[in-house]
């Protein structure tokens, strides 16, 4: 168990945040932490679709129950939190 800072980009937000997560946190818990910071979250959320987490530049998200440690996320890693359905809204074409 350790607290580490991550950089995250939440779907349709206006600014990148640095927040602290625990290495034991699952990806769903990371999303919860991030959503609490978000200004437009209620407006932007897609209630029936789960938020997913992937590294910036990666194509596939991590499994929702994978922990931060298992995912190999190190301090200040840049993560994208997105709705799978919103894939087409992704900022740049995936490799």
């Amino acid at each position, binding site marked *: 168990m350790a607290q580490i*800072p991550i*950089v995250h*980009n939440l779907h*349709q*937000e*206006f*600014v*990148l*945040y*640095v*927040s602290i997560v625990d290495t034991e946190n699952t990806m769903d818990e990371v999303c919860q932490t991030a959503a*609490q*910071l978000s*200004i*437009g*979250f*209620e*407006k*932007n959320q897609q209630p029936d679709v789960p938020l997913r987490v992937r590294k*910036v*530049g990666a194509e596939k998200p991590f499994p929702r129950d994978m922990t931060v440690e298992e995912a190999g996320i*190190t*301090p*200040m*890693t*840049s993560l*994208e939190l997105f709705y799978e359905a*919103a894939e*087409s*809204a992704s*900022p*740049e074409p995936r490799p």
Partner: protein
Amino acid sequence: MALLDRADWYDIARNTNWTPKYVSEDVLFPEEQSGALGLPLEVWESYDEPYKVTYREYVRTQREKDAGVYSVKAALQRANFLDQAEPGWVSILKLHYGAFATLEAMASSAESRMARFGKAGGMRNMATFGSLDENRHGQIQLYFPHEHVHRSRQFDWATKSMHTNEWAVVAARHLFDDIMAGRDAVGVALMLTFAFETGFSNLQFLGLAADAAQAGDISFSNLASSIQTDEARHAQIGGPAMKILIENGKKAEAQRLVDIAIWRAWTLFATVTGPSMDYYTPLDRREKSFKEFMQEWVFGQFERTLLDIGLERPWYWDTMLADLDTRHHGMHAGIWTFHKSVWWDVPPGISRAERAWLEEKYPGWEETWGAHFWDPIIARFLKDGPVDTVLPSMVQLCNMAQVPITGTPGWTPGKTGRPLRDFPLEHEGRLYHFGSEVDRWIFQQDPDRYKDHLSVADRMVAGMIQPPTLEGLLDYFSLKEGEWGEDALGHRWLEEYRQEQAQAA
């Protein structure tokens, strides 16, 4: 005593170089100070400055300029314009003086580098006057705000800002160290005078002067346009240097320096001038939108200057155009949500009338910035009451621009603006974050130059800001009570929305 006409002696006098006998040319003009890219003195003798002036002429003109500006100030001092000025305008003044006064004084040393190490006689002449200009700009912009310090300690930031680690100050210093303090003579000529001053300083010193005149601030309007007359002269130091570089096979290097400086200038003006023009200036005093000024002066006038001189459009021109719809809105949103982190009071600038103006100038603003940023905040304020620090967490800063990494909220394909994203880069085991591909590209041009700098966010994460709380951070920024920014309207703007809500109910 009869004086020769300038035209009869100037060209000969300024090209009368001596041939060094005791030291080599490289010792007299070391590359790291001259940046002449290996071009010898003879080549630089063809440098032809478009604006020729003698010391006698210079002193006479400058004396008149100063007399004009100071006497207008003295005449208007009693009128106490500032006591009746709209809050947004007062904020612009505090921001302006804090951001520019001491940097102008610092520009004096950059000009001095050209005055000593420029290989061209004409450059050395013009830069000698440029150095005196910048000294004047430093002095006058410290003097003007001083009379207002008794009104608010925030005006004292004209003197204080650059001696602190306040985040916007760190951003400004990072930029000016890069294009000014930490460059050789040719670097300063291309990056500071050609790119920054020719391309951008109009925005702050003419655009804002126009707004100042509209706002009734004759004293500031006069000051800014007087400064700009100096800038317009010494900004021309870079052009002839550029010509020589291009003619001698150094175009790629010149283009690279200019590309770096234009983008860096853009990120600064989007942080400082953009919010001032589009959110702080009282609505009925706005001459043009920030975007319109940018389109006219940078994408119009300056682009022609670039092409005329033989350079190409910077490779990121389209990216910068798209950024016109995003960056300064994001900077404003970020600064307002954390207004305690700056030395001026921040007006939200989002009354219904102001929003209609924003939508007119930036079609699509309402469905992005309006609906996905401001409306959720307004809804929350109406429900729970307004708060001063809206952001509950540290935001990530760009490792080049040193400002928050932002994007258009609620962006989907087809909407104006651009999505929020990070442009990370791993270099020698450290992970860097950038707000755009251009900022990342600049880093890659010379990683050794930039790699050791820690952004304020990095410093927070590294435990250098203690305690790691809001209080600790404000203390690190040297912002004391009475200095840190408040909502410039004391949240009174919320009343309009409260009434809307009541009527709807």
